[in-house]
């Protein structure tokens, strides 16, 4: 059947086939994003001895569909004072990189769309673009709350991006490659060979920075509903708001996936008697995402000065010291411990 399609489409075939593969990544991802919102409400509900949403569908399983339809039917208000084009560009720039970054994510030894050597660099570039969406939305709204929220949020995101970048440098020193698939393979050999162990401080810094980077609780001052209502997306309604909302969850899944690939061995099995499989990767991502939800249910919100202090005065020194330590150890005969 594929041969027939190949003959029929001729030179267009690679484009069509790539599109099929992209859709095969994007559709499950969208489903995951939609159901992560339900999972969040369910998990936090149970942690607070509530049931969470349970009316729409069996046990609330259709809640994301209902939410989507409701938001679709709501008017998209564009304030008269706003810059129309930028106002609509904001949400697009927030969500597009969260999806586009998946082009280089390896799900398995062979299951990867674009197996490029600059994979990690591409991901870092993409995740950096997300902050433009926040700044543009806050500026274009021409509203005080949106403006202040976007400033806070942007400063927070760029601050933690540095800590994240340094943490990744540690991974590169151990793996000696920017190719995500090769980084995973460099960790083969079971649970104790994964990079979370030799790079433990970097793993912790990376994960906490990932929470701050996605503006999640306890680092969600950008939203800070008690002081600046909802931060940069206060003027957005209907589907324009929904896109911001989905971007946040898509980003959460992306950073959890990166943490799983770089510190938890990706698709590799933790024990030698079980086979490597994409299921391991999905399980690791789900476990990390559970921590995101758990944090939100457990921790009170940080103050803004505490957030900035943690990023600049704790995480950056910690990562710098550990990079130097790992680099130094690699010059000795214990280098094998860090590869």
């Amino acid at each position, binding site marked *: 059947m594929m041969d027939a399609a190949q003959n029929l489409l001729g030179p267009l075939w690679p484009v069509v086939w790539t599109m099929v593969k992209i859709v095969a990544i994007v559709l499950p991802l969208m489903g995951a994003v939609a159901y992560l919102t339900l999972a969040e409400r369910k998990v936090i509900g149970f942690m607070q001895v509530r049931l969470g949403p349970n009316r729409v569908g069996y046990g609330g399983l259709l809640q994301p569909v209902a939410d989507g339809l409701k938001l679709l039917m709501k008017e998209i208000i564009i*304030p008269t004072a706003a810059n129309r084009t930028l106002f609509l560009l904001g949400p697009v720039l*927030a969500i597009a*990189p969260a999806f*586009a970054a998946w082009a280089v994510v390896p799900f398995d030894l062979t299951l990867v*769309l674009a197996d490029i050597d600059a994979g990690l660099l591409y991901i870092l570039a993409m995740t950096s673009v997300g902050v433009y969406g926040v700044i543009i939305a806050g500026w274009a709204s021409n509203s*005080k709350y949106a403006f202040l929220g976007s400033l806070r949020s942007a400063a927070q995101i760029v601050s933690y991006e*540095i800590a994240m970048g340094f943490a990744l440098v540690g991974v590169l020193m151990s793996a000696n490659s*920017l190719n995500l698939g090769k980084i995973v393979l460099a960790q083969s050999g079971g649970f104790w060979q994964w990079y979370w162990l030799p790079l433990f401080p970097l793993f912790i810094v990376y994960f906490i920075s990932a929470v701050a980077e996605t503006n999640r609780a306890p680092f969600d001052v950008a939203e800070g509903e008690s002081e600046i209502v909802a931060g940069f997306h206060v003027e957005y309604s209907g589907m324009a708001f929904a*896109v911001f909302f989905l971007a946040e969850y898509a980003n959460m899944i992306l950073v959890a996936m990166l943490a799983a690939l770089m510190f938890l061995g990706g698709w590799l099995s933790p024990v030698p008697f079980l086979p490597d499989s994409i299921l391991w990767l999905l399980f690791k991502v789900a476990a990390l995402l559970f921590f995101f939800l758990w944090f939100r249910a457990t921790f009170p919100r940080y103050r803004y000065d505490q957030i900035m202090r943690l990023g600049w005065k704790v995480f950056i020194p910690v990562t710098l010291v550990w990079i130097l330590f790992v680099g130094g150890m690699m010059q000795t005969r214990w280098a094998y411990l860090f590869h």
Partner: protein
Amino acid sequence: MLENYFPILLFIIVGLAVGVAPIVLGKLVSPNRPDGEKNSPYECGFEAFEDARMKFDVRYYLVAILFILFDLEIAFLFPWAVVLQEIGLFGFLAMLVFLGILVVGFVYEWMKGALEWE
């Protein structure tokens, strides 16, 4: 080599479409009843007084500038980290000097209070 990057270009286009499609769809199906009050900027029920694009804390500039410095630093560290095994001790010491200069600057800005947010 370059054809490896073609799927990425397509994926970026799909990513943009994921953002644009819901908004266009929402515009088409949802009602549109503009109203002077509804379309004014939100300010807790008050009429908005003074421009929303007001003066803001200079520390946000400072963070942005420091971010550029450190981000460039990371850009330099990336290729170094990838080839660290080949360049060995000499490469490590060279980067030690480079990082040392950075740390001096970092300590200076710390002592100057550039990282304080009270």
